[in-house]
């Protein structure tokens, strides 16, 4: 139980740190971190669907885009206020992803990845080609939520959304539903035979994770002031996967740490824009080869190494990790 307490304490300290941070950093970095929080929400919610539940979606980014366009279009074309247009964006993404979930019930792995990718391409091209309505590639101006481009209120908004997302996912994963999602990922046939209604929980995973993406997307549009079909570009999806994998898939902090760390790294390398993708790619290769559990695995290994030193070669972790005879 102690371990959980430590975890909560670390979480609380990080939240407080993030809350006071804008006092010490300029507007530019506040903006950078706001965007990082947006991606952290996408990464954490993708981790719920593809990490914990094992439904490997390549269409997650498009739900961010759909949420953004729905809310912005409802506001600009129908004159609906924020407090209605944003929930409408979330609801529509949940509905669309539930339908996709139903369509994908019998497929998994590569086939699921391809269907979700195709869906994302359809959505992106709809927003590109139906330009009289959506603004096409030129993009669409989105009303600003706080009426200003000054980033501080948006920083706090996305910090709040990220915290809410993390808490929601933790609550889900610690509830019985979390057990079912993990069971479905490990062995869906065994899960069904143990009484898990996999139809219900697969759709649940799709709806909740996409709803979170839709929420992040809707607020993102109203924070940036301009949305475009670039949000639905496949590169965006690749970045989400990179954030999760670098941070640590199937861990709670991993995707958040991955998204924030990589976004900051990319900003620091902005002056060398040609080499930054090279450095990022090398980082992915190194992490995949040596710590395929991501940064959290690296942290665990360092901790293990320190413990080993302290205990004269015997580590508490060692005992758990060594016996692998049954893995074949």
């Amino acid at each position, binding site marked *: 139980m102690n371990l959980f307490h430590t975890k909560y304490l670390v979480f609380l300290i990080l939240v407080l740190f993030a809350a006071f941070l804008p006092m010490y950093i300029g507007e530019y970095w506040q903006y950078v971190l706001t965007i990082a929080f947006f991606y952290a929400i996408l990464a954490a919610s993708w981790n719920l669907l593809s990490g914990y539940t094992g439904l490997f979606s390549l269409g997650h980014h498009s739900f961010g885009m759909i949420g953004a366009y729905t809310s912005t279009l409802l506001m600009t074309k129908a004159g609906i206020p924020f407090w209605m247009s944003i929930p409408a964006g979330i609801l529509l993404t949940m509905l669309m992803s539930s339908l996709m979930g139903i369509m994908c019930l019998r497929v998994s792995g590569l086939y699921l990845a391809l269907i979700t990718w195709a869906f994302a391409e359809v959505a992106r091209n709809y927003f590109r080609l139906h330009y009289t309505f959506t603004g096409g590639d030129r993009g669409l101006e989105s009303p600003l939520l706080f009426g200003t481009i000054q980033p501080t209120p948006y920083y706090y908004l996305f910090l709040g959304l990220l915290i809410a997302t993390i808490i929601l996912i933790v609550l889900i994963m610690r509830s019985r539903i979390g057990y079912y999602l993990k069971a479905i990922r490990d062995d869906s046939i065994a899960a*069904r035979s143990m009484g898990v209604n996999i139809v219900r929980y697969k759709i649940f995973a799709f709806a909740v994770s996409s709803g979170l993406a839709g929420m992040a997307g809707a607020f993102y549009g109203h924070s940036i002031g301009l949305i475009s079909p670039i949000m639905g570009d496949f590169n965006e999806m690749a970045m989400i996967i990179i954030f999760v994998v670098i941070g640590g898939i199937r861990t709670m902090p991993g995707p958040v740490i991955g998204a924030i760390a990589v976004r900051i790294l990319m900003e620091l390398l902005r002056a060398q824009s040609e080499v930054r993708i090279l450095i990022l790619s090398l980082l992915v290769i190194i992490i995949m080869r040596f710590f395929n559990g991501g940064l959290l695995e690296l942290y665990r290994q360092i901790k293990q190494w320190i413990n080993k030193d302290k205990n004269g070669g015997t580590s508490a972790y060692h005992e758990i990790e060594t016996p692998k005879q049954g893995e074949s």
Partner: protein
Amino acid sequence: MNNKNNILEMDNVVKIFGGLKANNGVSFEVEKGEIRGLIGPNGSGKTTLINQITGIYDTTEGHIRYKGKKINGLQPDVIAAMGIMRTFQVARVFLNMTVLENMLIPAFTQGQSNNEANTRAEELLDFALLSRLKNKPTKSLSGGQFMLLQIVRGFMRKGLELYVMDEPFAGVHQSIKGIIIKSIKMMNQDKNVTFLIVSHEMATISSLCSKVTVLDKGARIAEGSMKEVANIPEVIDAYLGG
């Protein structure tokens, strides 16, 4: 046929995969409280039959009735909720969850309270000598322990009435086999759980089951005590390939 004591009735069950008739009109009944053996050479349709009883496959023709109610075509989770648990030939456990978490799944889907589920899991893990591993990741277990965990996990379901097991003794160490046999006998005597056990281990089946059903080429060819069926020419033919 419609004996009230029958918990499970197979009525002319046919299963066709493309051009292959895996089950060709199988009919037999299992009485409540029985430990029934289901034997037959490789490819005789035993696993296909089990997969139809537990909802993994729908039947092509015929009916499967559980306590008088047709169950073929129902989803596996619905069938599980009716009190039928199963194990798989290659143990299907949740590798990335802990041993204890594996045990909790069938209890949770049934709506057992945390307290009840945990107490029950501790008891069963104690019985299976898996207690000290309860918080370890399941993937750190051995192959025999996978099978054992898979079997005791099924006992987590309260009101379990029929337990269908596919090769529960295959490839497990003698000591683990002993625990499995003990658990089957105990649940049968104490809780009146009915068992339908597919196995190639004739000696074990002979000591455990008063009655066995023999399948060959997708059809039932014999039924009776092990001693009786062992002397039936069709059974000898099926096994010796005559």
